[in-house]
């Protein structure tokens, strides 16, 4: 590689780049190399206007190898996972999957991830669901629980400890 980013003096990281490709492999051919930067993804990105997510530039940077910058960015955590970018990409590429792969890299590298995801992850590892059953309000501001509504108990593995152990191990695994 002969590129240097003069704004940050960063150099492309080919090794990290390969890791993304590895993560994506087996899902589809979503590697960003074929992107021709038409910008259709960003034109329709649900997260651009409010959160400034630019899928086309994520594709460009991934292609050039500026992975470290992306993995450390807040940007990758703003994706709404609407899949519009993938659906409409004329080159059949998938920025959203590249973003997933970048987030996986960030987690694997022990980067600080947004608290919401942290909480969700902990909850799933703890009791199998992203959150505990809530007491909700009705329109008259009265609280309602599942029992009040004649709903059966929330599903839960009989041996949650075992599932927990398996899950802990699973999070260390890669797809291939």
């Amino acid at each position: 590689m002969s590129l240097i980013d003069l704004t940050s003096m960063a150099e492309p990281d080919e090794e990290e780049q390969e890791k993304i490709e590895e993560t994506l492999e087996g899902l589809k051919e979503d590697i960003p190399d074929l992107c021709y930067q038409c910008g259709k993804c960003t034109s329709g990105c649900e997260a651009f206007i409010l959160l400034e997510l630019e899928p086309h530039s994520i594709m460009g940077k991934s292609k050039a190898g500026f992975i470290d910058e992306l993995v450390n960015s807040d940007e990758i955590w703003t994706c709404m996972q609407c899949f519009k970018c993938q659906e409409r990409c004329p080159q059949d590429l998938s920025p959203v999957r590249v973003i997933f792969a970048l987030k996986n890299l960030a987690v694997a590298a022990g980067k600080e991830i947004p608290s919401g995801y942290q909480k969700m992850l902990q909850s799933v590892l703890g009791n199998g669901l992203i959150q505990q059953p809530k007491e909700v309000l009705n329109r008259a501001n009265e609280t309602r629980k599942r029992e009040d509504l004649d709903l059966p108990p929330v599903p839960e593995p009989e041996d949650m400890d075992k599932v927990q152990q398996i899950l802990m191990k699973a999070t260390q695994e890669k797809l291939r």
Partner: protein
Amino acid sequence: MSGIGVFICHCGSNIAGTVDVDELTEYASDLNGVTFATNYKYMCSDPGQELIKDSVEEQDLDSVVVAACSPRMHEETFQAVVEDAGLNPYRFQMANIREQCSWVHSDDMEKATEKAKHLVEMSVEKSRLSEDLEKTEVDVNSDALVIGGGIAGIQSALDLADQGKKVYLVEREPSIGGKMAQLDKTFPTLDCSSCILTPKMTDVARNPNIELLTYSEVEEVDGSVGDFEVKVKKKATYVDWDKCTACGDCAEACRRSGNVEDEFNEGLDNRGAIYTPFPQAVPAAYTIDSEVCISLEYDGTCTSCREVCELDAIDLDDEDEIVELNVGSIIVATGYDLMDPEKIYEYGYGKSKDIITNLELERIIDASGPTDGEIHRLSDGEDVESVTFILCVGSRDEELQSYCCRIGCMGALKHVHLLRDHLDEDVDINICYTDIRSFGKGYEEFYRRTRDLDVNFVRGRPSEVNVQEEKVELNVFDTTMDKLLQVESDLVVLVPALLPSEGTEELSRQLRITRSSDGFLQEAHPKLRPMDTFTNGIFIAGCCQGPKDIPDSVSQASGAAAKASTILSKDKLQSEATIASIDDDICSGCKMCISVCPYDAIEYNEEDEVAEITDVLCMGCGSCASLCPTGAIEHKGFKDEMLEAMIDAGLTEEEG
């Protein structure tokens, strides 16, 4: 005693620098059947050729082997020499000791020489079994058929007619002209399309060498180069074109007048059941569209047009007619269609009248078009304040057409010029582009001039187009400015991909020519034989081969005419001598050979239950001979015994 002569070429030091040519000559002279062997510096030079010729006579040779370069280089040269010397040219064999030996083994003279010996011995072994072969001859019919009457077909037909050839021009619409007739002005010179096209159309009509068959389609093609037999269906027009003067009284009287979508105007206005596609149509005559005519399609009661036609030209009893043609060569020029932009649903085509294609815009800008050249919003006739183009709609798209349409960018730049002429200067014009491709002569200059016309080039592609209450709205991210722009427009012009015209697949089957993976007709070589097909005598021109602009279509059309003419100008054609032949007694009629022949040269004889080869169609590729499970097919000049002898010679152990 007659025998084989071996001539070894040094090719300067190309061969002699690596192969010990003296040792090789000595070796060759001892080979079975060889009575003479020699070597020389350049065998292909005049003295080299003389050497061969003289030796044939002096040494009483009956076959010649030249060990030199690739047969691709000089097989024909040496065949001619041998023929000159009075031998049958197929008594010549060539051993390639340059590309296949000296060039690739320049580091090991000993082994290279050893390999050269094997190669020479293989050719000698083949030579021992060689026989005289004769080329078959066929008579050539000097007439030509051109299918498709767009600018490409018109150009081919005129060129051939100018050379005195009789040309049948078959066009499926009532008039020739093709897409170019629908254009207003043309890039990059902005000359009016019909001003340059109409004279050519009338030339076609007037040229005594051209027989125009419009409203016609090819039904069946048989035969082969020099002698094609073609059946053409002339659809019933229900109007006697010899009488009709195109006065148009009938169209006015037609009870369906204004009720039928006008194809020429891209559905932007209506015609009647009796119509002529456009005022300058050639031939200048009316046609009844039988599918919508009240009398023909419904109850037979309407007589409106017949009542007004003073020349009594209307004939509802007219019937389709089959015309049989005999031609020596065929040029296909069937052009293109636009992709239906509804395939990219998110761009909203069909949801609002204000979202149109570039071809619709051509019709709107045209002073004789459906709006008389007035540009207003199509939904409500309000003024246009903003026009936005979206390029690459379905082109360069992996789900739709992966190729570039080659005319979209330039077409849009042209439209900017025309819109600036037609609209107030404060009208916004936006072009959403990915790459502007202006590669032709004078095109980049045209692009530069367009940039000066106060147009917003937005480097990006919208994700969707939304029809709002008044305007059509789209968001587009401009990658040069890193800004998401909201654009409100009164007209959104989509620039769709170009497809092979409808029916191309069927036509390719009828003609036995191939299509490339994009569906367009395939040229025999992308660079060196761009207008040939793999089928001898059939050529292609214009957009049927792939998207292109008018200059390229016309060049290819003239090229195809010249190519066809080289065939049509001969009295007789010689076919290859090294072709396949089938032994009827052995053939079991399994038809496997028919399925592999890329040239459709093999047919099944139902009566005798055997396969039969049409000699002039066979190109000698060898596919069938190697496949035939019974061994009934022999490839002349490459018989099994020959190849077996060569293999044996090639695999003998090195001596000592």
